[in-house]
């Protein structure tokens, strides 16, 4: 189970690093159907959206993480940065 999630994270990051943002988004979204509201997948997806200035979708991802774990510092940091822009 954990191995499968790692594969999704690895594959999503591969596309993200190669600036194939649509593919990265597709992979994380598919992964989230399997691992609903998983913080790692949501965080990576949020970062992809933030990096392409799609702030509305990025906010949704970071908010979902914080609903489950209000101590997720990285999600909080990115959400605050978007809101203050």
């Amino acid at each position, binding site marked *: 189970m954990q191995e499968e999630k790692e594969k999704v994270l690895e594959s999503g*990051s591969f596309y993200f690093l190669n600036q194939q943002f649509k593919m990265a988004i597709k992979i994380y979204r598919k992964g989230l159907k399997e691992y609903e509201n998983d913080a790692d997948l949501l965080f990576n997806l949020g970062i992809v959206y933030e*990096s392409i200035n799609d702030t509305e979708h990025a906010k949704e991802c970071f908010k979902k993480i914080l609903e489950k774990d209000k101590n997720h510092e990285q999600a909080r940091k990115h959400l605050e940065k978007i809101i203050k822009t």
Partner: protein
Amino acid sequence: MDKKKEHVYAVIGLGNFGNAVATLLSEKGMEILAIDEDENKVENIVNKVAHAVQMNATNEQSLKEIGMEDVHTAIVSVGDDIASSLLICTYLKDTLKIKHVIAKATDQKHARVLEKIGVDRIIFPEYESAKRLADSLVSPNIFDMIELSDKHNIVEIKAPSSFFGRTLEEIDIRKRFDVNIIAIKRNVPTAKDGFMNDFEETTIISPSPKEQIVEGDVLVMIGLKEHLENIEKI
């Protein structure tokens, strides 16, 4: 010219705006003399700036006694108290001969008198924030705008999808729209251990014609307002 003095600022009036300006300047390494007659406001800033003084700045003698002669730039933000603002600015310009005085105005009448006193720069922070917000709501693809003159602007605009994967040479923006791209702001993807995504904010100044536009790029462009508006419509 005494170089040291250029780094010395006075901020008079420590409400939300004055506090923020003083704190941000201090974070940028400037030496700040922060002044307010409200003890709580001085307490709030005392650990963030070089000097914080509780005093009534409309008292000319007190201003002379606190070392204002070292100040290169003074920022006056005493809220809605127009009389105090005018009195303080007069002392700063006429008596203390402060080189650069910036004052916050509440309305146009206030601004006109400040101008007559010789204030070097008059600001309307609330109006400026409101204008920025209104612009961003009407044109969501515009991230920032600087008015250079009545006719010319610098705008930061999200690259349209039709530009993705094409070089500046191929897009030929100067010929098509008569504007120049002076920089590209780009978030470069990175990843940490365990495939956790991140990105670095970079700015490509004077990009080469061979530079390829990628999704998420923000184009910093200069040109006539009407020409820049044509790009917003793409």
